[in-house]
């Protein structure tokens, strides 16, 4: 059996906390343990922060659409922004010695480190979606 929850949040920093809180509540309700929830929390924060900052560029007229789904396979999160999109593979590797002292650019690394599957695609209706799965 799987359960889902959907959120539509405005493009502001406070939405990052709100999304993470809702994700943690949903994951807890679905019976996942603290370490698992901690990983989900970080991935949700990073993905929603990216959507607010880089996708929607803090334009509060644009929402961030978030879906959580818990199932026997694990916990799935998708986050959609309404920005022009980007090429994840073109993001510089923050662990490259040349980039170590850069102030930003680590969010995607955290998402990939704490989730088992992370993929980006353009939404047919516009914007970009990141879909992440953490397996049980």
């Amino acid at each position, binding site marked *: 059996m799987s359960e889902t929850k959907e959120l539509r949040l405005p493009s502001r*920093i*406070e939405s*990052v*906390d709100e999304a993470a809180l809702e994700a943690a509540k949903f994951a807890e309700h679905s019976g996942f343990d603290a370490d698992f929830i*901690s990983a989900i929390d*970080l991935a949700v*924060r*990073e993905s929603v*922060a990216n959507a607010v*900052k880089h996708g929607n560029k803090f334009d509060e007229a644009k929402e961030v659409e978030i879906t959580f789904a818990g199932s026997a396979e694990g916990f799935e999160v998708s986050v959609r922004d309404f920005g022009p999109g980007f090429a994840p593979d073109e993001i510089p590797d*923050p*662990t490259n010695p040349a980039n*170590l*002292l*850069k*102030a*930003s*650019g*680590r*969010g995607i*690394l*955290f998402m990939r*480190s704490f989730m088992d599957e992370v993929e980006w695609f353009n939404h047919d209706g516009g914007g970009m979606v990141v879909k992440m799965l953490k397996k049980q």
Partner: protein
Amino acid sequence: MADITISERQAGDVTILDLNGKVTIGEGSVALRTTVRRLLGEGKNKILMNLGGVGYIDSSGIGELVSSFTAVNKEGGTLKLLKLTQKIQDLLAITKLLTVFDVFDEESDALSSFE
């Protein structure tokens, strides 16, 4: 409630910042940036950041640590880290920043290292 509180102590010429709360995108990161820039403006450029009370940090908070580190270095000073939680240690390992920061478990050891 504020995301973070930052208390200052002085040990000789080393300023110890005791951080409690979250260093995340928004208020937590901004508070840290403001504090470090103010210390540099006051000529205090030996800074020991105690992260023992930081329950949560994200990529923005990690970025602010890096940004503080480079700002202090630029002023000819040194910024070191004290009491990393396991979570922060994991994030610094993933980002390979454990190779950048001097990290200590004991305050006395950290203070001696500035001499």
